[in-house]
């Protein structure tokens, strides 16, 4: 700071203009020309920038907007299907989507043309002349499982190969065919095609050639590979009424309901005979007694994980059986509940893709999806409960058919009035709908790509329509809200764009927004105080000469490529923080305390010392103090870890085996033995634990004091919840709030009286008193923190459920530190400039009135420079929000939504960077990434606008300066 006279002279406002000679000279034409050029360039440049911004915004909006729109239905055709019976057991779309695959009750699997309804192929799937009584199809394995009235079962793998023919070859043979025509491949052709394609053995007698376009001939086939019949034990000769199957590669799960109302669960394993001879099916079954006569059954299902068997009745009753034990144990009925209110009836039921949730259509035209969730409060012995995941709005006409899509959770619904609707059960979005025709729909199916839907009406009409699916999985709810996904226990915010085939897409951006905010806030909490204090120090306390060298150095830091910082974070900082965790955590308290303590002690030093303190020496001293404080942290860290984060008496007793069965359990436990980490922590706090499924009480008195049972003290183990109680963590977490509290109390109630006491003393004595007060305040802070920790622990809170938690190496703290480092230079330079811009006359006035430099800085400079400092922070915030490389490299990029500062996260920016290369152009995922960009854009726009507003108001206040 340098309030010299010259500055005051230059600050002397706009003085009177020197009275120049009055000139009537014309402005030169060159001058005017350049003036014009400059004007046009500047205006044009400004407009171009605006236009570019607007263009980017429009582009982002245009790219993301289709996510929120719905699809639509296109060209439609209808024909009469060549069916023997109007009630097919199963309908699917053919591979090339110009045919339908229909299983007739007569045991005939047919392929019908969507254009003409004509029969393209037909395969007999009867068992020794007996038609199947039940069938179910698994789209993932392309297997059809059939049950026959005699209690046998067969499965058929269905293959629909399509082979493009060489046009030159095909032109010779079938040039006279019309487009869309087909011709069965008979003997002579078969030869020709076989020679052309060397496919002879693979083509069945159902093979045909279809002219798909002017130069496009395709060989199509329907190959059905039926396994030999296997009989379900106990079911021999019993007609099966309803039947369902879930098959994986190794294990098939069947559930059959016989005409007489008996329920069988069977598991079939494919056994490959040693020494060749093919494979055979080994089926084991178990009958489950049905307690009451079941009313009319709409469907019976087994979940794909084999945990539950579901029986859906027409009156809306659901019965759930616990099949976790498989065929080897009892399959008890665990839950009976009504799915629908009032006298609404179930008209149709299906398992959704993935085989975990149940879709139920009712006679009001509504479809609900249901899934089992675990719920500690339920009385069901498997601790699970059937829960509604989503509901569509009622359409009026009863749902008569449900067809499950194979790509995502989009389903096709057929209604009694002939209407067809495509709906996505995750997002709840109505994808497309086809108008009612008047004849009820018996069966619907939707193509895997969701671009075509077919329906068979009660009058044997075969209706097919092109669909423009749009983005079924996206929608406001799915993108920003909580959704109850399959396999989860409650609605959650989850982002998981790419999962296993058939897995439910989880596209909630909320975890990404959360990650962005979390990274930004932590980084700003670290960066803003350091940068602003640094700017105050350099602008108000350093000599201009030193500042002139420091400032460019710091600015140089800002130009460090963030990828380098990310690299440093991942390779250097993250392992360091992992290895020195106690030191790092302790340093957050020790470094500021040491610096402040030394500052107080400094006032005790002889005045001559401080007079000899040049800026350079001062910097050296500060650096030395900093190094000292870090060293102190390194010393203190392990000590604190050993004392606070050690296994407590309960841990040691449990580890040493000193426990006895507990006589009473806490009420919330309700006899469960599989606990989450947080639940077992809660138990341990009461001195309890589960050992081998038994609740036990630890007996700490039986363990000698010096015993090292329970292992080493370790913050990491404490964070993981393996040892220790909540309070040491609370002490650490409460230091900051406690110090704020104490500082506030000091300023509010002590400061004035204290000033009187100090001013009555000599200078040295006053300084000593101040040092004493500081030490006492620090102690009081510690005591307050311990008190708060004790209270929070008493209330049953554990910091490991919120701000702390299991440690991952690439965590929020690391990112905060490194990203803080990245934004400090920007905040620092802008804040420093803002403070330097405060007129020196104000500093002179303040100092001349007897204020210290610190008082001048805080009372005069900071308020005047406030707007500049604020915008410095905002610009830093904007940088942190959009920062990509550091978070990309220094976090695990796991889209978690926890407060835990030792957990990873994923930001919007990192998400775009990670996933854009793998997103298919124009697809839902691709557009979701654009939406991420738009949200990011909006966030920065909000930050900058609010920053600008605040700045404006500041500026108005200081306008007269």
């Amino acid at each position, binding site marked *: *700071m*340098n*309030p*010299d*006279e010259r500055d*005051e002279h230059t*600050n*002397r*406002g706009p003085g009177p203009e020197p009275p120049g000679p009055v000139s009537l000279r014309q402005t030169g034409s060159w001058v005017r020309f350049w003036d014009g050029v400059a004007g046009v360039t500047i205006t044009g440049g400004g407009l171009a920038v605006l236009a570019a911004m607007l263009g980017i915004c429009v582009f982002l909006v245009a790219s993301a907007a289709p996510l929120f729109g719905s699809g639509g239905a296109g060209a439609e055709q209808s024909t009469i299907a060549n069916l023997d019976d109007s009630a097919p057991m199963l309908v699917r779309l053919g591979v090339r989507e110009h045919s339908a695959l229909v299983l007739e009750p007569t045991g005939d699997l047919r392929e019908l043309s969507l254009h003409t309804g004509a029969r393209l192929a037909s395969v007999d799937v009867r068992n020794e002349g007996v038609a199947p009584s039940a069938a179910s199809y698994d789209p993932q394995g392309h297997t059809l499982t059939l049950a026959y009235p005699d209690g046998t079962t067969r499965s058929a793998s269905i293959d629909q190969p399509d082979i493009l023919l060489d046009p030159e070859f095909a032109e010779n043979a079938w040039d006279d065919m019309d487009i869309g025509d087909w011709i069965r491949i008979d003997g002579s052709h078969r030869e020709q095609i076989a020679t052309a394609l060397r496919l002879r053995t693979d083509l069945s007698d159902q093979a045909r050639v279809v002219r798909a376009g002017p130069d496009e001939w395709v060989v199509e086939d329907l190959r059905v590979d039926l396994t030999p019949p296997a009989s379900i034990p106990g079911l021999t000769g019993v007609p099966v009424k309803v039947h369902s199957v879930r098959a994986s590669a190794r294990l098939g799960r069947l559930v059959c309901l016989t005409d007489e109302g008996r329920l069988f669960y069977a598991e079939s394993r494919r056994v490959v005979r040693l020494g060749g001879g093919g494979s055979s099916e080994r089926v084991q079954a178990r009958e489950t007694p049905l307690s009451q006569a079941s009313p009319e059954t709409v469907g019976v299902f087994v979940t794909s994980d084999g945990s539950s068997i579901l029986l859906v009745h027409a009156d809306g009753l659901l019965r759930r059986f616990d099949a976790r034990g498989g065929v080897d144990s009892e399959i008890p009925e665990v839950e009976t509940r009504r799915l629908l209110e009032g006298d609404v009836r179930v008209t149709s039921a299906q398992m959704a893709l993935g085989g975990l949730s149940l879709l139920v259509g009712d006679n009001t035209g509504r479809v609900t999806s249901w899934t089992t969730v675990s719920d500690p409060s339920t009385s069901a012995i498997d601790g699970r409960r059937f829960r509604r995941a989503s509901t569509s709005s009622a359409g009026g006409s009863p749902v008569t058919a449900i067809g499950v899509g194979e790509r995502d959770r989009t389903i096709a619904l057929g209604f009694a009035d002939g209407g067809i609707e495509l709906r996505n059960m995750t997002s709840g979005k109505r994808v497309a709908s086809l108008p009612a025709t008047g004849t009820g729909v018996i069966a619907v199916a939707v193509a895997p790509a969701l671009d075509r839907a077919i329906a068979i009406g009660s009058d044997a009409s075969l209706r097919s329509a092109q669909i423009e699916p749009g983005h079924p999985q996206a929608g406001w709810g799915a993108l920003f809200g909580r959704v109850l996904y399959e396999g989860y226990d409650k609605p959650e915010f989850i982002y998981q764009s790419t999962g296993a085939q058939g897995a439910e897409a989880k596209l909630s951006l909320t975890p990404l927004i959360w990650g962005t905010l979390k990274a930004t806030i932590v980084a700003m909490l670290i960066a803003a105080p350091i940068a602003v204090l640094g700017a105050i120090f350099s602008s108000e306390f350093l*000599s*201009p*000469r030193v500042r002139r060298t420091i400032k460019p150095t710091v600015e140089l830091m800002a130009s460090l490529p963030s990828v380098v910082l990310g690299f440093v974070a991942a390779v250097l900082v993250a392992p360091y923080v992992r290895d020195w965790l106690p030191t790092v955590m302790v340093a957050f308290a020790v470094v500021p305390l040491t610096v402040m303590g030394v500052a107080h002690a400094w006032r005790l030093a002889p*005045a*001559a010392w401080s*007079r000899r303190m040049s800026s350079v020496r001062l910097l050296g001293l500060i650096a030395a103090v900093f190094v000292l404080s870090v060293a102190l942290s390194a010393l203190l860290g392990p000590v604190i870890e050993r004392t606070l984060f050690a296994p407590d008496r309960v841990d040691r007793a449990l580890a040493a085996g000193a426990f006895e069965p507990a006589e009473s359990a806490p009420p919330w436990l309700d006899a469960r033995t599989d606990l989450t980490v947080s639940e077992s922590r809660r138990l341990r706090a009461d001195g309890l634990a589960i050992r081998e499924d038994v609740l036990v009480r630890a007996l700490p008195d039986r363990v000698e004091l010096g015993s090292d049972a329970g292992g080493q003290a370790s913050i990491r183990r404490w964070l993981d919840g393996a040892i220790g109680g909540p309070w040491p963590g609370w002490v650490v977490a409460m230091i900051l709030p406690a110090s704020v509290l104490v500082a506030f109390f000091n300023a509010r109630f002590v*400061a*004035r009286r204290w*000033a*009187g006491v100090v*001013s009555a003393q000599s*200078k040295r004595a006053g300084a000593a008193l101040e040092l004493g007060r500081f030490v006492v305040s620090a102690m009081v802070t510690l005591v307050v923190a311990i008190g708060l920790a004790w209270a929070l622990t008493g209330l049953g809170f554990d910091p490991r459920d919120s701000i702390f938690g299991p440690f991952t190496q690439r965590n929020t703290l690391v990112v905060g530190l490194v990203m803080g480092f990245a934004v400090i230079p920007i905040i620092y330079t802008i804040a420093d400039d803002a403070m330097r811009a405060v*007129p020196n*006359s*104000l500093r*002179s*006035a*303040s*100092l*001349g*009135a*007897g*204020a*210290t430099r610190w*008082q001048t800085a805080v*009372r*005069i400079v900071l*308020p*005047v420079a406030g707007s500049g400092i604020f915008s410095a922070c905002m610009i830093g915030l904007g940088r942190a929000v959009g920062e990509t490389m550091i978070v990309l490299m220094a976090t695990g990029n796991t889209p978690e939504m926890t407060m835990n500062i030792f957990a990873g996260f994923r930001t919007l920016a990192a998400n775009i960077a990670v996933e854009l290369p793998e997103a298919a152009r124009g697809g839902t995922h691709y557009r979701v990434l654009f939406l991420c960009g738009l949200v990011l854009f909006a966030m920065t726009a909000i930050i900058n606008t609010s920053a600008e507003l605040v700045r404006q108001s500041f500026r108005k*206040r*200081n*306008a*007269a*300066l």
Partner: protein
Amino acid sequence: MRLNVLEAIRAGRPVESVIHPELARSPSVLQAENFALWYGQSKTLHEVSMGVPRGKVTALIGPSGCGKSTLLRSINRLNDLIDSVRIEGDITLNGEPVYSPDVDVIELRKRLGMVFQRPNPFPMSIYENVVYPLRIDGENRKPVLREACEKALKAAAIWDEVKDRLSSSALGLSGGQQQRLCIARAVVADPEVLLLDEPCSALDPIATIRIEELIHEISSRYTVLIVTHNMQQAARVSDFTAFMYLGRLVEYGPTATIFQNPKLPETEQYVTGRFG
């Protein structure tokens, strides 16, 4: 032949300041003893020795750049803040050396009120401006502050103009009002000496006259050291006048004598405007 003093100064030769005997008779609050000051390599004050009589108004005159402001700022050690400044000699306030190592600069400045060439109110309310020196002392009691504020504003002859708008921003005042506000701020903490550096240079004649009246009025309570370029002003308000030239004190005596009958003809030429 007689213009030799200024020529000698210009030539860099040492000259004796002419100090009138009247000054020796009045007790001085401030006393500079061979005070010299360098900005880096350039010596700006050359062994200035002068006393400022207690309870009187002393004017410092001299051509621009002669070191008047520098001298003023040396008294409350605002020059300390400039890195390149080096001093020799000493200044005493009530006999206590200002530049002694164990002097508390902050305390020192609290005993000296300073008003600058250009009005520099803080961007806060009028009230907060006036009580600022008390606030930084840790005084927070409302009644005390209010009373001190009123007293200072009355002393600075601005109370009637601002008493209804104490909580509005000081930046909304006119230049003359702002300068009087700064004077109020300078006197609120009851300083021993008031240092005024061309307090009227930015003001119109009427405001100037008001400030002059004000100086006259407060001179009964404070010792005032005022820098001015305006000879009439010096003549009107001051009891003693010091004439400086290129960092040297040339002549120093009672104002009447300096203006009517100076010992050096150079002084006479300067005060009558025949100099330049």
